[in-house]
C-alpha cells in the first residue's frame, strides 16, 4: 500500500465519520418530536415507498421537471456502482478492479458515461430554469438567500462531478492508447472518446497527471458532497425513503383525533366516569403536554422528518389556493421554517448550557398567525408533494395550540364556535328549527 492509498483511506474514513456524526444529530433532532404510531400496515407502506420514492410516481405530474429529475436520479443511483470501484481501487491501489467482467464491464462503463452526460445536461437545464427562466416557484421570497444558493450549489456540484468523471475517462482512454503501464484496455467510452482529443499531443506524464487529478477531484468531490447533504435540502435523497414509508395512509381528509381530548370529553360526557382514577403507571409524573403545537418539540417525529425531507421544490406552494391568491401562507415555507427552527433548537441542546429554551418558538418567531389562518385545509399541498410531506398537519396542530391553549382564534371563528356549542350549527339558528325546511315552499 502506497502513501496515496493511505491518504485515500484517511479521506474516506474522515468523510464517513463526519457524515455519520451529522446523520446521528439529525436523527436525534427528529426524535425530539412526539410519538406517533406508524408501525401498522407495513406492506402498504413498502408499496407506497416503492411507488412514490423509488418509482418517482408523483414527480411526473409535471412532465418536464419529472423526466429530467428521473434522469438525474437514475444517473445518481447507477453511477454510484462506479464509485464502489473507485473506492476499492483507491484503497488497494488497483486500477479498474472490476474489469475482469469483460463485456459486461464495457457495457457498465459505457452506460455510466451516457448517464453522466444526461445528468450533466439535465443539471444545466435545471440551472437555466432556476436562474434564467426564473420559474415562479423558484424565485419566491422564502427562497432568498441560502435556499437559492443551496439549490444552485447542488447543481454546480453535480455538473463538476460529472465533468470530472468524463474527463477522467477521456484521460484514461488516452493512456490506454499510449500503452501506459497499469492502464489496462477495458471499458467503453461513447462520450469521453470525444474528450480524449483534449489530451492529444500531451506527454504521457502530463496525461497521467490529468487522469490522477480528475480521479482525485471526482472522488473527493463525492465525499465532500456526501458531507454537504446534512446541511442541504439535498438530504432528501436519503430521507425520501423513510419519509414515504411513514407517510399517512388514511384518506387525505381524515385528520387525527387527539387522544388527550377524547379522554377529557369522555369524562365530561359520562357522569359515571371516575375522574379521580389513578393514572396509568409512569404517566403520573410526566408534565402534561400542550394541546397542539407551539414549538417543534410539540410536533410528532413524522412531521419533523418531513421537514428534513423537504426538497424546497415549491410544488405544494404553487398549488396552494391561499398562496396563489396572494396570501402570506406558503406550505413550503411551513416546512422550511420547521426545519430551521428544529436546527436551532438542536443547536441550543448542543451548546454548553444544553438549554433548548431560548425564548423563541416556531409560532410567531417563524410562522405567523396570519399564515396559519389562511389555510383552507384543501390538501392541494399534500397531493402535490412528490415525497408525501404533510404541511397541513403542522398548520392544524398550530391552530390547535392557538385555539385550545391561547383562545386566540379570529373573532368570527370564536362566534362560530359559540354557535356550534349553543345551537349545534355554525350560524345563529335555533336547533329546534333544524327541520323547518321541510315545510317551506
Amino acid at each position, binding site marked *: 500500500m502506497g502513501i496515496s492509498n493511505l491518504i485515500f483511506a484517511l479521506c474516506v474514513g474522515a468523510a464517513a465519520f463526519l457524515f455519520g456524526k451529522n446523520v446521528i444529530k439529525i436523527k436525534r433532532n427528529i426524535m425530539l418530536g412526539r410519538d406517533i404510531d406508524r408501525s401498522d400496515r407495513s406492506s402498504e407502506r413498502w408499496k407506497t415507498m416503492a411507488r412514490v420514492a423509488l418509482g418517482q410516481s408523483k414527480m411526473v405530474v409535471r412532465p418536464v421537471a419529472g423526466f429530467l429529475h428521473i434522469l438525474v436520479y437514475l444517473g445518481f443511483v447507477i453511477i454510484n456502482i462506479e464509485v464502489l470501484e473507485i473506492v476499492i481501487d483507491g484503497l488497494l491501489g488497483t486500477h479498474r478492479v472490476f474489469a475482469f467482467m469483460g463485456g459486461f464491464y464495457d457495457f457498465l462503463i459505457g452506460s455510466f458515461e451516457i448517464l453522466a452526460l444526461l445528468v450533466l445536461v439535465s443539471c444545466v437545464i435545471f440551472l437555466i430554469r432556476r436562474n434564467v427562466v426564473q420559474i415562479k416557484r423558484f424565485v419566491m421570497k422564502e427562497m432568498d438567500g441560502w435556499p437559492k444558493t443551496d439549490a444552485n450549489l447542488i447543481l454546480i456540484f453535480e455538473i463538476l462531478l460529472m465533468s470530472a468523471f468524463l474527463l477522467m475517462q477521456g484521460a484514461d482512454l488516452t493512456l490506454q492508447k499510449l500503452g501506459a503501464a497499469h492502464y489496462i484496455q477495458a471499458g467503453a467510452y461513447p462520450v469521453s472518446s470525444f474528450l480524449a482529443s483534449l489530451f492529444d499531443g500531451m506527454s504521457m506524464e502530463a496525461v497521467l497527471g490529468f487522469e490522477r487529478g480528475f480521479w482525485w477531484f471526482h472522488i473527493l468531490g463525492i465525499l465532500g458532497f456526501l458531507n454537504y447533504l446534512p446541511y442541504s435540502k439535498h438530504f432528501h435523497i436519503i430521507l425520501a425513503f423513510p419519509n414515504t414509508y411513514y407517510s399517512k395512509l388514511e*384518506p387525505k381528509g381524515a385528520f387525527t383525533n387527539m387522544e388527550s381530548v377524547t379522554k377529557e370529553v369522555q369524562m365530561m360526557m359520562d357522569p359515571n366516569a371516575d375522574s379521580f382514577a389513578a393514572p396509568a403507571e409512569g404517566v403520573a409524573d410526566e408534565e402534561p403536554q400542550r394541546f397542539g403545537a407551539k414549538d417543534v418539540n410539540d410536533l410528532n417525529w413524522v412531521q419533523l422528518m418531513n421537514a428534513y425531507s423537504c426538497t424546497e421544490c415549491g410544488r405544494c406552494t404553487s398549488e396552494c389556493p391561499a398562496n396563489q391568491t396572494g396570501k402570506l401562507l406558503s406550505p413550503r415555507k411551513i416546512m422550511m421554517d420547521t426545519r430551521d427552527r428544529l436546527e436551532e433548537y438542536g443547536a441550543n441542546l448542543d451548546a454548553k448550557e444544553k438549554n433548548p429554551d431560548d425564548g423563541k418558538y416556531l409560532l410567531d418567531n417563524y410562522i405567523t398567525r396570519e399564515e396559519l389562518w389562511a389555510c383552507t385545509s384543501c390538501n392541494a399541498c399534500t397531493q402535490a408533494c412528490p415525497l408525501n410531506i404533510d404541511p397541513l398537519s403542522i398548520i392544524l396542530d398550530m391552530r*390547535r395550540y392557538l385555539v*385550545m391553549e391561547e383562545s386566540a382564534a379570529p373573532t368570527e371563528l370564536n362566534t362560530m364556535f359559540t354557535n356550534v356549542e349553543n345551537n349545534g350549527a355554525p350560524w345563529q*339558528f335555533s336547533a329546534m328549527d333544524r*327541520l323547518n325546511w321541510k315545510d317551506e315552499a
Partner: protein
Amino acid sequence: MENTTRIQVPTMAEMMAKGESPDVLFWVGCAGSFDDRAKKITKAFVKILNHLDYKFAVLGTEESCSGDPAKRAGNEFLFQMQAMANIEVMNAYEVKRIVTTCPHCFNTLKNEYPELGGHFEVIHHTQMLQSLIDEGRLTVDGGVYKGKKITFHDPCYLGRANEVYQAPRSLIQNLDAELVEMKRCKSRGFCCGAGGAQMFKEPEKGSKDVNIERTEEALETKPDIIATGCPFCNTMMTDGVKNKEKEEQVKVLDLAEMIATAKDL
C-alpha cells in the same frame, strides 16, 4: 310548472315509533338545514328519494353540527363533543348507512367518527345517485340539460380528501350534457376557498379572493352550468359568478338539483 306535491321527510324518531327502520339515514348538515340556497339542494335530493319511494329518514332536530368547521379551525374539544353526541344519537337508532349532500359531513362521519365509536357506511349523494342509476332504479335523460356545456368543480373534501371523482362526472354524462373540464380538475382541483372554516371568517389579506380565482377558471370553459356537489362550494361559486356579473348566463347548480329538474320533480 311548479310542482306542488309536498315532500315526505320522516324522522328517525317517527320511524322508530312505528317500529320501522330506514334503509338509509339522510344526514342533512347545517348548510342543508339552514342556508337558503343549500335548502334547495336538500329538497331536490328528498324529491328524488320520494320519487323512488326510497325508505329514508332524517334526524331532524336531533341532528347537530358534525363538528367539521370546529375541528379544522383547531377546536378539537368542540369537535369531539359534537362527534360523540351525534354518535350517541345514531348508535341509539342503530344507524348503519348514511348519505349526505355535504362533503364536509361526509368526510368527517366517514373518516373521523369511527375512532370515536361511530361505525357507519357513509356515502355522498352523488355516489348514491350514480349507483341508483347503475342498478336501474333511477332513470334519467337529459331533459333541459341535453347538450348543455357543464363544468364540474371538485369539492376538496369529496375529491382529494376522499378520491371521489367519477360519480359526479358520470351523473353529468347521464344528463346527456357535455362535460368540460377546467384546467385544474380532479386531484389537482383548485379549492373554492370555503374549507378549513374559511367559510365563517373574512379571508386574510391577499391579491384576490380564492372563489374569484376559481370562478374565473370555471368561466374560461364557457359553461352554461357550473356543477358542484357541496353546499359551501355552491355558495362560493355563486358569489363568484355574481361578482363577474355572469349570473344571467351561467348557473351554479348541485347535481341533485339537476337530476330533480331533469326528471321534472
